[in-house]
């Protein structure tokens, strides 16, 4: 798959309306460095730009035309850079036959193509409801949107007759000892992850899909999140975003630009004993993890750092180094005198030869939902991770974390396991094709 923001020239549609639009300056974006486009989220105009503007003027962004190619061997939104805003929506699938399911997959493919590439909504008879919500205006801006479709275990175990094709490790998420799972926030037949520069772009895409799949999908639960942008400093290595505990989250994430590494850690390979149709897909583990932030903020800094296993300000490991990119050497600290043995990052990734098999690719967002009945903030982490093997990946890592000191400050309340479908390879392909074809052949 093309992991870069697509060049606009290649995307130029042949519709006269679109061409005219591109002609008035958006085409200039094509000349911008790809990395700059792909890495940054929506930018907020600074004070200097705001001269002469008015209170309710829309904030401006130079990234509304960012496009992330959705076609390729793998779906976008997994190893492509995480933008500012994310949303995970879980659905019930109402398809009663595999033909219905195929129809759903075709609709989703068409909507994903339109929403991620952008374009003008069709004009309908004004006596009819409009084609879309219009919340992004009549011309939909791609805004770096990715839409990633995954299937839950219940879709395979249901009446569609797909049980024989269920990915080997795809089961319904079970509670870990510290979990207090809310059934209204768990599982689902199908998940859609939306990622883009702004929450509104994700909401627009969700509403479009809900409208176009009314007889096939019923929304079950959703969780939105964001990650805070940081100032772009040329020449500085990139930094991991901070979570709502104030710590950097993602420092030890495997390099998503290393395709060979991603093939090993993230994408299902032919030699894993998985059904053939699943090759090129991935396991998606979602956890909605509430953080008790008031209590955390009343915890001494040294204790916070001992619980996490990193310095809060820099993200550096506790056995030396100055940045989050320095790697701890636990072999020289076998008793945990520098980094406690039960520190979060040490349990999650002990950095032994064996634990190499348990690496996962994290793609989390911070969420904030309001106020609890006790008057505390309801916020935390929308944890999303991807791996080629759910058992070796998330499940093994989480079992190591069970009982960690951090549990006093966190409470997983929802989520689920899903299988991210292989990519849409070309214009003739559609999402879920390999699964449907495998079923028809069987």
């Amino acid at each position, binding site marked *: 798959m093309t992991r870069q923001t697509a060049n606009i020239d290649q995307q*130029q549609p042949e*519709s006269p309306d679109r061409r005219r639009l591109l002609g008035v300056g958006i085409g200039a974006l094509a000349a911008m460095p790809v990395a700059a486009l792909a890495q940054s989220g929506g930018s907020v105009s600074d004070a200097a730009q705001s001269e002469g503007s008015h209170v309710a003027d829309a904030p401006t962004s130079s990234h509304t035309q960012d496009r992330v190619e959705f076609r390729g061997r793998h779906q976008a939104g997994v190893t492509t850079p995480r933008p500012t805003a994310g949303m995970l929506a879980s659905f019930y699938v109402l398809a009663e036959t595999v033909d219905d399911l195929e129809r759903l997959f*075709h609709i989703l493919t068409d909507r994903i193509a339109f929403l991620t590439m952008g374009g003008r909504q069709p004009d309908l008879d004004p006596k009819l*409801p409009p084609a879309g919500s219009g919340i992004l205006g009549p011309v939909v801006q791609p805004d770096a949107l990715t839409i990633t479709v995954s299937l839950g275990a219940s879709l395979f175990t249901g009446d569609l007759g797909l049980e024989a094709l269920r990915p080997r490790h795809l089961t319904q998420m079970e509670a870990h000892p510290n979990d207090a799972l809310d059934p209204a926030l768990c599982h689902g037949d199908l998940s859609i992850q939306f990622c883009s520069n702004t929450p509104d772009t994700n909401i627009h895409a969700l509403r479009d899909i809900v409208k176009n799949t*009314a007889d*096939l999908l*019923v929304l079950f639960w959703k969780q939105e999140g964001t990650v805070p942008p940081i100032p772009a400093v040329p020449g500085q290595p990139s930094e991991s975003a901070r979570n709502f505990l104030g710590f950097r989250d993602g420092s030890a994430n495997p390099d998503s630009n290393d395709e060979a590494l991603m093939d090993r850690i993230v994408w299902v390979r032919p030699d894993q004993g998985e059904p053939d149709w699943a090759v090129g897909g991935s396991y998606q583990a979602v956890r909605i993890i509430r953080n008790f932030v008031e209590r955390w903020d009343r915890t001494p800094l040294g204790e916070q750092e001992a619980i996490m296993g990193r310095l809060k300000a820099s993200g550096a490991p506790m056995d030396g180094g100055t940045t989050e990119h320095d790697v701890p050497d636990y072999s020289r600290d076998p008793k945990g005198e520098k980094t406690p043995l039960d520190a979060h990052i040490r349990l999650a990734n002990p950095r032994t030869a064996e634990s190499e098999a348990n690496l996962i690719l994290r793609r989390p967002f911070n969420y904030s939902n309001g106020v609890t009945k006790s008057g505390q903030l309801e916020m935390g982490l929308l944890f999303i991770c991807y791996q080629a093997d759910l058992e070796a990946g998330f499940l093994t890592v989480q079992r190591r974390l069970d009982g960690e000191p951090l549990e006093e400050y966190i409470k997983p309340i929802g989520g689920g396991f899903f299988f991210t479908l292989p990519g849409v390879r070309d214009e003739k392909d559609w999402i879920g094709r390999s699964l449907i074809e495998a079923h028809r052949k069987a």
Partner: protein
Amino acid sequence: MFQLSRRSLLAALATAPLLPGIARAQAKPSPLQLVRPVAQYKIYVTQNVRKLVADTRVFVAAVKGGKIAEAQRLYAPTRTSYEKIEPVAELFSDLDAAIDSRADDHERRERDPAFGGFHRIEYALWVEKSTRNVGRVADKLMSDVLALQTRLTRLTFPPEKVVGGAAVLMEEVAATKISGEENRYSRTDLYDFQANFEGAYKIVTLLRPLVERQNRAFATKTEANFKAVFDTLAKYRTAGGGFVSYVQLSERDRRLLAGKVNILAEDLSKLRGMLGLN
């Protein structure tokens, strides 16, 4: 991109001929053609409101007589005539609020003095298990229902409200009924579902000759979706013609109903435009 969107358009035409069918549609029906279905709908409403008045009279008498078991038995069947004609009954928002508001429409919920109507009595019958506090509420319900009858008799039915009413009923079910929050004390929600769907189906049936001329596939698909809904609800009928408790609705059937409500709401939202109404 262009090829793709053309392909999507063709696919959409093949699978769901409702969406872009405007260019191919027949000439819109003239306002005169709507006179007959609208008049027939007014008859339907008149019959239902007459039944509502009669049933409410018996229900109110039971409530005021402190006959809790009898009032409980009458509660859901009495409401159905109201639920069938909700799109026009709602045109009088003061009466709708007085007759059919729920506790969460009021800031102080069940304790709010403004909370009245059917659901306040429902609360008395199933939660308070006493009619001591609702004698005046019952009197007010009777007078509100009579006022509704008077106003509906005088009302010239606006065609767009009648045609749009089918979608309105589906939107109501989709937004605040499918969850079982309407009759939260009595759990008689399935009576309301049946009545709402019947009310919407009546409108669709009266308009079917006009709709079929515009878009036969639409008429066929809508018919099939209503049938799926009625078949699903029929599984929950009791011997006496009523319905079992909402809590017995299986999760699977709840989802199926939710999906059918959504697609009916989507499709019926095009009914006004299809018939050339604003």
